[in-house]
């Protein structure tokens, strides 16, 4: 249950908050996913680099 206390938060302010926070959460999730994908992409590349280094020796 939401306790609103003595302050009327305003329907417009609540709706805007829900929309902006939704966008912000989507942005954060997108950023995290991108970082995760980038990490995955870097891992095989690093493995390839390491094998090349070993081969060079």
């Amino acid at each position, binding site marked *: 249950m939401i306790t609103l*206390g*003595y302050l009327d938060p305003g329907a417009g302010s609540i709706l805007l908050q829900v929309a902006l926070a939704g966008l912000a959460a989507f942005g954060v*999730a997108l950023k995290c996913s991108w970082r995760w994908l980038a990490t995955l992409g870097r891992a095989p590349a690093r493995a390839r680099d390491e094998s090349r280094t070993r081969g060079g020796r």
Partner: protein
Amino acid sequence: MPSLLEPPAAAPHPPGPAARRDPASFRDPEGRVYRGADGRLYRQLHQSFAPHRRRLVESGLENALVEEGLLVPHEPAPLALRLTDEAVAVLQPRELPFLSYPYEWCFGELQAAALLTLDLQLRALEAGLTLKDASAFNVSFEGTRPVFLDLTSFETWEPGTPWVAYGQFCRHFLAPLALMAHVDPRLSDLLAVHLDGVPLDLASRALPLRTRLRPGLLAHLHLHAALVRRAAAAPAPAARARRIAPRGLVALIEGLRRTVAGLRWRPADTGWAEYEDALPYTRDEAAAKERLVARWLERLDARSVWDLGANTGRFSRLAAARGAATVAFDLDPACVERCWRSARAEAIPNLLPLRLDLAAPSPALGWAHEERRSLEGRGPAGVALALALVHHLSITRNVPLPDLARYLARIARAAIVEFVPREDPQPARLLAARSDPCAGYTEERFRAAFAGPFELLASEPVGGGGRVLHLLERRKDPS
């Protein structure tokens, strides 16, 4: 705080006859502020606040905020000192030397108070709490440092719920700051008219079109104003429709913080901030004036000093250096801003610059004209400094000298007042703009006017131009 976690004492408490509720403390039933019979300030806590206080204490947030100087410390006090029987605990908040109001702050002060509020909200969310209101009146200043006053603003946060004070924050802080930054810094005056914050539609209409190109202002102010207008007649959204991702709420508040921090106002040349450089003193004369004021401040040994017409706070610093809680008042926003920025950079702990028109000092405002106190209601100060001020009030604003003397005696126990003769370039310039001779502005009339409410302790000339400093003490029985 065991007194809060235990059931209330059974013994009924007759409220002390001299205890009086603070007229500004009536909105939130969870914590009433009042002045006890002993003259001290207290806050009583209601049972409904107990779970919130428990979390505030047990999470370590209250201690951390107090230690960092962000929250006014509250010491436990005996429950017997409560104002009403519904109290379960009594606390004694540390009282600030001078309670300032948002409509008296310069741009930098309002921005610092806004950032403090958002930082507290972010810290509160981490601890499973939230601020249930975000009024600018919850903040005041201790010197140049903003400090949060309202302990009972913290309440337990239910993850997934929005910030109920988001709209109030935008009205109290974002709208006036945007107007000050993008239109005119004097628009902080709007906060004295709109005590519950500047209406967002008003701010949105008054702001230039280019502010719609700034994503933060577009979202939190312009779009916000449009949604508030559209939803005014609509019922409150269903609980399901107002669920909010906790991570999203944090990101929203961080974005709001970036928007507030990104607002800039550079004090431009208003003519006043450079005023001191234009005064007809040589360097030696200016130094002699400083020495004299410092000597007289020492003699008066005042704990509080109000520097009226302080400009950028040159003489306020002398008072602050002597340990007096000093308030530097000036009408010009650029002067106040510069004074605040420099005092903050120098870490002067007891100098508070504020914006005030002494010809129309802050009145008593709010509910029943008691909620926000007038300037006089927050006095008297130990000493009022009125240096190079009288001619502005007397000649430009037509304040009669006897009225000025009486008012100074109401707001301060002693005063150091400078009289600038009409032949001096400053009054001469003001007199040249008038068609009447302003015959009442003479040193004789000045002395006669101040002789009623004050006793003249000393007077000494400063410089060769006929300026005279007067050291005055309020008469116990003014004639």
